[in-house]
């Protein structure tokens, strides 16, 4: 059994052993091991030249990583909480995403970012901000929902030639999965995974919400409703083909997303399905997401902002049983 955290740490270490060009940068990732302990122990093995503590300068640390990548190194940056990536958006959007398109300079960069709520950290430490980047061509976005995918997608990210935003949901870190001694195989980008097979309703999600959808599918199955669960794995590239096939299969689609419903990536998914599979839908596509407000700190208020297993089950049930 391995935690999500350990799977990521072991992958970072393995890639660092394999390729001397790989190094880590971030705030308090050295002796402290990172805010969520992901890089614990790596300083001892690789030293301060390859496990670099930086000042609290998100823009400079991301920009520096971009420059190092352009010069041929393979930086992996940790943004302590994804909320803080707002301070580095310029460097990602205006530089990393455009280096190859304009200058033909590859930018093999990975930016790891702990995302999501559920721990009562409040409005500036709980967001899922991938929506800021999904409309910026030139960036790849990976959002694993279990330890094997975390390792497999991270390997692909670290060996590629492009900037990758790697989302690590905070609630996944301590969870455990069965994983062998060896690293799981790399997972190619752009291949969504069907984590549960069913014919009544299709649930689509990524990151922690894909984990919850799988749990919801088990409950639904016990109630006689078989749900098809699609875990996107990567938002960019987006595996539209698998999404559309899964939508056609059941004719009823529920997209589950953490973060405010307005402007969420769920809207893009819904549109893609509608464009390609309009004639196969038996009910309007539904979205289950947060309300349009910042995430409050109080446990009860926060819970009102994030889809739960119970809410997914209820919404899926309603959709599966709806007649039109």
């Amino acid at each position, binding site marked *: 059994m391995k935690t999500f955290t350990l799977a990521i740490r072991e992958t970072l270490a393995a890639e660092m052993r394999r390729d001397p060009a790989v190094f880590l940068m971030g705030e308090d990732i050295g002796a402290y091991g990172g805010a969520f302990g992901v890089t614990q122990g790596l300083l001892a093995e690789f030293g301060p030249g390859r496990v670099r503590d930086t*000042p609290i300068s998100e823009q400079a640390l991301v*920009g520096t990583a971009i*420059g*190092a990548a352009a010069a041929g190194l393979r930086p992996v940056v940790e943004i302590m909480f994804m909320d803080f990536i707002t301070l580095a958006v310029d460097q990602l959007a*205006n530089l990393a995403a455009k280096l190859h398109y*304009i200058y033909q300079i590859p930018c093999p960069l990975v930016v790891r970012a702990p995302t999501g709520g559920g721990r009562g950290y409040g409005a500036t430490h709980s967001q899922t901000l991938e929506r800021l980047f999904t409309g910026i061509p030139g960036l790849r976005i990976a959002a694993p929902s279990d330890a094997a995918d975390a390792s497999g997608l991270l390997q692909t990210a670290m060996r590629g030639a492009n900037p990758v935003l790697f989302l690590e949901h905070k609630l996944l870190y301590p969870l455990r999965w069965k994983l062998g001694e060896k690293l799981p195989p790399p997972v190619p980008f752009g291949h969504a995974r069907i984590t549960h097979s069913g014919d009544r309703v299709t649930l689509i999600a990524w990151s922690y919400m894909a984990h919850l959808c799988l749990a919801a599918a088990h409950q639904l199955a016990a109630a006689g409703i078989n749900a098809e669960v699609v875990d996107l794995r990567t938002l960019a590239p987006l595996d539209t083909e698998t999404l559309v096939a899964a939508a056609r299969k059941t004719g009823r689609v529920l997209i589950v997303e953490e973060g405010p419903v307005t402007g969420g990536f769920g809207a893009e998914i819904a549109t893609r399905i509608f464009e390609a599979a309009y004639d196969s839908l038996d009910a309007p596509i539904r979205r289950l997401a947060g309300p349009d407000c910042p995430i409050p700190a109080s446990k009860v208020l926060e819970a009102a902002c994030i889809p739960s297993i119970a809410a997914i089950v209820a919404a899926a049930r309603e959709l599966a049983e709806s007649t039109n």
Partner: protein
Amino acid sequence: MDDWVCYERMVLIRCFEEAVERLFSEGRIMGTAHVCIGQEAVAVGIAAALKPGDALTSTHRGHGHFLAVGADPGRMMAEMFGKATGYSRGRGGSQMMADTALGFYGANGITAGSMAFACGLALEAQQRRTGRVVVCIIGDGAANEGLFHESLNLAALWCLPLVVVCENNRYAMSTPVAAGLANTRLAERGAAYGIPGCAVDGNVVADVRAAVETALTRARAGSGPSLVECETYRLSGHSKGDPRIYRSTAEEADAWQREPIRRLEAQMLAAPGSDPARFAACRTRAEQAIAAAIRFAEASPAPDPATVTEGVFAPD
């Protein structure tokens, strides 16, 4: 680069920029451009100080920097015309050209946007001990971005082989330095990060070169970054179509008295045995080179619109 080579490069830059202004006014090129007329000595002084293998990052006002390190005016002009033969195959335009083979890692349309990037290039040089030093050019306005401070702090902290050259051309668009900087003595900001900061006359190519060489030597020795402020003047408007209503013609006329090309010319003419005809011939050659660049650009094919989404990502 001896005086003649410096002079030739400066004249080439001047002719290129004059042509760009002309082409805009004739409606032959589109978009925007920021020309560096009056600032040629900064670009050439830096280029003269660089060693092969060193790297340079530039700004939105980058034509001169690129030409100074040996860019092909034809491919630059083709980029201005949006042609497939341009440095960025028509994708970059005036503000986004690069040629890493020349150590030129690109201009940047974002004010100060290259500063951390330059730190990253320098970090690679430091980690792999390549001996490379990175020169990062910025404007006076860029010095007010947060990235300026973050980058200088990081570069100083990590002792990166970096030289930040600030082209203080007195204006950021319409904003004079005194309206943008709480302390207009920009070079003093080096002290905040415990690194050398010096100011030189940016209209004297030898002074720019000497100051940058000192900073490069220091960086190459492993002693870390420096800040070099080059005091100059942006003789043209900020970009095409700038009516320059925020400053007086008297001020501009005064600045023309100190422009770098005539100053270098005067200095070279004062040397025994100099031939005045050589200067005119140099100007003619530069004009011919730019005319050829324009012909090349105009004759070049436009990029194929079907390729517009190609290369968003590098092959993994």
